[in-house]
């Protein structure tokens, strides 16, 4: 079933002539219950897929917002059991496909990825696993039919993009990094993002989702004609931090705005 889930997300969005919207939340921030509640709010706002981040001590691809969220979760003792609990609950309550974003070392520490599958995860995003490493983790994920989402960056050469196109797991999409930098909100979408999307489109058949720095509806509109989906993390987490107890309502509205802005 997982195999078709991601594919159908993009198929449905394409049919609606809009981008798939994929909000990102850190498991356990501000609490297990809140993460689940916020995921439900995303779903209510029209999100197509939920990404859950496994809090990690050394998130090298993340900017201050997600670093802080990870740290808050870790400080509250969010560990493997709690992350699995969040994944299970989010899947169950939202009914949406769930992707797990985790740095490699956390996954390497699991003898068995089965529990992820059991929790309903339908794919893995591993920010420190580039194409070059045919690391054992790929084999293990593939055995469970868990696609590993590849990244493309403005610095990726055409040759590399072609290689991504050739080697991408069935049912995966490409995570297109919109800028040179780590996660975190940016004023506007960079030219680099559009260039990358264009080059990727020519070389990759799989859907393209844009992430890193997408701050809100304007950014979504800016890429709506060039991509198939957007990933929004820091902007969402900043919003939750700002809103406190009223976060769920605000998140639902924000996601709805993103979905709206994603129409072509």
């Amino acid at each position, binding site marked *: 079933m997982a195999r078709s889930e991601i594919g159908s997300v993009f198929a449905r969005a394409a049919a609606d002539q809009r981008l798939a919207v994929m909000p990102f939340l850190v498991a356990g921030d501000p609490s297990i219950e809140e993460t689940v509640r916020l995921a439900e709010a995303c779903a209510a706002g029209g999100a197509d897929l939920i990404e859950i981040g496994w809090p*990690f*001590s050394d998130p090298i691809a*993340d900017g201050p917002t997600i670093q802080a969220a990870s740290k808050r979760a870790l400080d509250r003792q969010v560990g493997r059991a709690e992350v699995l609990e969040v994944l299970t609950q989010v899947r169950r309550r939202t009914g949406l496909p769930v992707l797990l974003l985790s740095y490699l*070392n956390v996954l390497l520490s699991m003898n068995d990825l089965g529990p992820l599958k059991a929790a309903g995860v339908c794919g893995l995003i591993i920010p420190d696993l*580039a194409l070059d490493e045919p690391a054992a983790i790929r084999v293990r994920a593939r055995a469970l039919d868990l696609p590993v989402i*590849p990244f493309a*960056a403005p610095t990726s050469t055409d040759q*590399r993009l072609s290689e991504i196109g050739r080697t991408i797991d069935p049912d995966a999409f490409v995570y297109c990094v919109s800028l040179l930098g780590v996660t975190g909100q940016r004023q506007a979408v960079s030219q680099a993002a559009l260039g990358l999307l264009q080059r990727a489109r020519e070389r990759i058949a799989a859907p393209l989702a844009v992430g890193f720095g997408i701050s809100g509806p304007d950014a979504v509109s800016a890429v709506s004609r060039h991509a198939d989906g957007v990933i929004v993390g820091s902007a969402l987490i900043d919003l939750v931090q700002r809103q406190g107890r009223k976060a769920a309502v605000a998140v639902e509205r924000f996601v709805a705005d993103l979905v709206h802005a994603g129409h072509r």
Partner: protein
Amino acid sequence: MPTEPDAGGHFGEFGGRFVPETLIPALDQLQAAFSEAMADSTFLAELEYWNRTYTGRPSLLYHARALTERIGGAEIYLKREDLNHTGAHKINNTIGQALLTRRMGKHKLIAETGAGQHGVATATVAALFQMECEVFMGAEDVRRQSLNVRRMELLGTRVTAVESGSRTLKDAINEALRAWVASVGDTHYVIGSVMGPHPFPKMVRTFQSVIGQEARSQILEMTGRLPDLLVAAVGGGSNAAGLFHPFLDDAVAMVGVEAAGEGLDARHAATLSRGRPGVLHGARSYVLQDEEGQILEAHSLSAGLDYPGVGPEHSLWKESGRVRYASCTDQQAVSALIQLSQTEGVLCALESAHAVAEAIEQARRLGPKKTIVVCLSGRGDKDVEELNRYLEAHRDGQI
């Protein structure tokens, strides 16, 4: 035992490239520039020029007779990297990388630093080759190595204190990697040890191998034979790799000494002794981590050893048994530092003192007629304030 990694930078099952996609092309570019440079006699001559005329290479191999006599065992020789310009082995690597940076047409440098020695060494070459430079340093290290912070600033480098995590070297590397991702077009990240993604481990080891190459011919000249044992401290592992590598095919025993901090059962930084394989900062290697793969905070009085990772080649050497990895507590290091200082008049870095402590123990064990070469990776000026604090706090203690 392969002495070079495969094309992907794998040392057996260690090494590789585990970084965000954004960096991959820069690593490819660096790998290409490095390979070409090492085959280019102009580059090698330039490297040799700066090593000789600026750093002051070859560094001395000093026969520590007074210490040897005091211990009453094997003959101890000190490879005096502390006499290099800027006071540590780190400059061997930064000169090489700065020359490569120029070759790649980049003109900005960033670096992480723990003890500050690599930061100073990077700031130094940045000044020398007129490049812009920013150094990331854990806020805790900024405090305990304030001398080096000021040195970097006087060299024209911006020092950015990193407040995240344990506020030490690990976090400085995280931040440097983040900064590199954001600036990779015109900026080279000068990694300071044999760690990080390929080609860094091999490249840094290559630039540091001048230590072992010199030591090998010096000891042959001085004693007519190879040494029985090599000893070096292991933080990321660059001074150790630089000393060991040229002796790999020889019948020479080697010990890498990690920081046991307050003890192996308390807070420490003994990655190879107490860690397990994992992925940190771009490479697969031993890592200090908990059951669930969260990286642990390391602890060592010595900022340069205070790191929960280690270079991948050391992981291979450990697994293959080619090198033994020992550890040394803060207290043992301080007392070795003082002993060396008061018998030989050489005030070494706290990092190096870990190697000295092990060498003293091994000299006793091996007994006379054997010879030990110890890498004195740096000088202790940067550590006197921290030592002072330590000695004040342990006044009643057994030091």
